[in-house]
């Protein structure tokens, strides 16, 4: 375990993988430093899942190179498998078996003797709040529980690198927060986490660095701060009482914030991008100033919110097309299976 915490956990050079005529990976270059959470951000069909499957030795690349802790994923697949774990988008446990049986089985397959495997399963179930559900078949678990037992199964052998493929897609906010807490604990104990997500705020919350992927290629890379400074760290959405005052409001906001203001199709709605320097504090200050100036000008605001830019806004800023444009390749996942 010489380089569990140092050096590069993942290194890919010009990785290519096609499914029929579709190039799911089209020259993907990634450098994932060990000991961190690394976010791979992109819309459906961007190639995130394909990238993870190649790195986890489930798919062979058509071209380029991929190394995990210095081991080639094709030539040294066994060494790679010994050090990584994958939690896919779909439950990767046997749904007919109970939670406890699944974990004991995996423990046995990883070389633990039966009593040790049982002990490990019990400890994991307890730590993940699943003791009560230990004897229940996995198919009877709720979405959040399923995701938790999946992650528990993935850290059974304390991997050096954990792949989480869209770990919070489809989860309710509470389950999502639980998964975030677990990810933080995992990385705090020295496991590198490679996380794919469609949500900028998720990557922002967890990742030390983010690669934005589109059409099988990295289109931007950096810390969340760096990325946000290129997009702006937030967006103000507001709705006025009186549609007639919108031109005035637009003028006020432009003067107060010095940022572009966008008029929405809804005649009372408008948005403004704030936090151009990439700090969340600046975004909050600008939001406060905007609301103050509008009140001073006597313009009634019915609805006001400050949010992080959506993936769509990130894509608009980084490319010249919205994220949805990649949707024709939604079938990539299907083909990858």
């Amino acid at each position, binding site marked *: *375990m010489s380089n*569990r915490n140092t050096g590069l956990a993942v290194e890919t050079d010009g990785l290519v993988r096609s499914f029929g005529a579709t190039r799911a990976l089209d020259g993907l270059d990634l450098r994932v430093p060990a000991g961190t959470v690394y976010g791979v951000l992109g819309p459906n069909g961007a190639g995130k899942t394909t990238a993870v*499957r190649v790195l*986890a*030795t*489930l*798919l*062979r690349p058509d071209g380029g190179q991929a190394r995990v802790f210095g081991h080639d994923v094709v030539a040294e697949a*066994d060494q790679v*498998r*010994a050090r*990584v*774990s*994958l939690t*896919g*988008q*779909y*439950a*990767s*446990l*046997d*749904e*007919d*078996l*109970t939670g406890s*049986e699944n974990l004991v*089985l*995996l423990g*046995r*397959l*990883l*070389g*633990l003797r039966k009593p*040790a495997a049982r002990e*490990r399963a019990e*400890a*994991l179930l*307890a*730590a*993940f*709040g*699943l003791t*009560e559900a230990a004897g229940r*078949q996995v198919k009877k678990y709720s979405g*959040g529980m399923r995701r*938790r037992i999946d992650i*528990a*199964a993935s*850290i059974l052998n*304390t991997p050096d690198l954990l792949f989480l493929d869209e770990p919070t897609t489809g989860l309710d906010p509470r389950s999502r927060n*639980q998964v975030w*807490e*677990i990810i933080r*604990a*995992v990385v*705090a*104990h*020295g*496991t590198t986490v490679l996380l794919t997500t469609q949500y900028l705020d998720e990557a922002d919350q967890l990742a030390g660095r983010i690669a934005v992927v589109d059409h099988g290629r990295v289109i931007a890379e950096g810390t969340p701060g760096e990325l946000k400074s290129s997009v702006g760290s937030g967006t103000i959405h507001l709705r006025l009482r009186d549609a007639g005052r919108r031109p005035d409001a637009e003028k006020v906001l432009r003067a107060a914030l010095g940022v572009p203001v966008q008029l929405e199709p809804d005649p009372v709605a408008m948005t403004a991008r704030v936090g151009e320097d990439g700090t969340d504090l600046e975004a909050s200050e600008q939001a406060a100033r905007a609301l103050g100036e509008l009140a001073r000008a006597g313009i009634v605001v019915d609805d006001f919110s400050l949010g992080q830019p959506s993936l769509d806004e990130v894509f608009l800023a980084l490319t010249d097309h919205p994220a949805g444009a990649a949707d024709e390749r939604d079938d990539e996942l299907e083909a990858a*299976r």
Partner: protein
Amino acid sequence: MSDTATTTTGRAPSVYVPSAEALATVLAPGSRPARPGPLSASLSFGWRALLKIKHVPEQLFDVTAFPIIMVLMFTYLFGGALADSPRDYLQFFLPGIMVTSVVMITMYTGVGLNNDIEKGVFDRIRTLPVWRPAALVGMIFGDLLRYILAALVILGVGLVLGFRPSGGVLGVLGGIGLLVVFSFAFSWVWTFFGLVLRSEKSVMGVSMMVLFPLTFLSNVFVEPATMPGWLQAFVKVNPITHLVSAVRGATAGTFDATNVMWLLLWSAGFVLVFGTLTMYRYNRR
């Protein structure tokens, strides 16, 4: 959730709050155990198959009810016409229908594998650092149990209906043994199709297309002597014919060396060819 009242926090016990301390205890990197050997890994996968039977006992329907129906149906359908009585026919027919039923259920190996791929389990299994064929070998180990069960069920029904094997217990066990060896080897055909074909349905379809002619165009139901020459030629090289002859010999207390040899050669061939093809596909998906 009956103990809600005993929790002082007032929170229902089902609400999980990740605790850093609890997670720390399971995240501490321990020493990694040595990877399990091929047999141990295969047996673990076999254990999984047993657990599945325990949780979904309905899946035993096809190894119990289906064979019983086959025996009853054909014994009374053909018995009077092909022999003097159903009871006489049974002496000839039982080893054959035993082979047919067990060989037919080998296809569920492919269906089960295809099902695993459809769900996500297969991904996790394939990222484990274990002997590569272990998952498939273990799956077939579990299936062997089903084959033995089906054979015993058929034997039981046969004995009730009047089957009296002159080979005795030893001969019958020998016959079942030969059948299980062949079925293990033949299962590798279905692991290959289970990996190559897209859906459970198509695996079933292909299996039926192969299994029906293979089992019916043999010496299971009648002696080939009355068949046209071209059909006799096929029946003669059909591995099922060798298998049925060998099992018939064993249950009758005679050791049919020629057919046993053919049967073992066919078995070795299936493992070699389809085992290799299967592993090639398994590694290259």
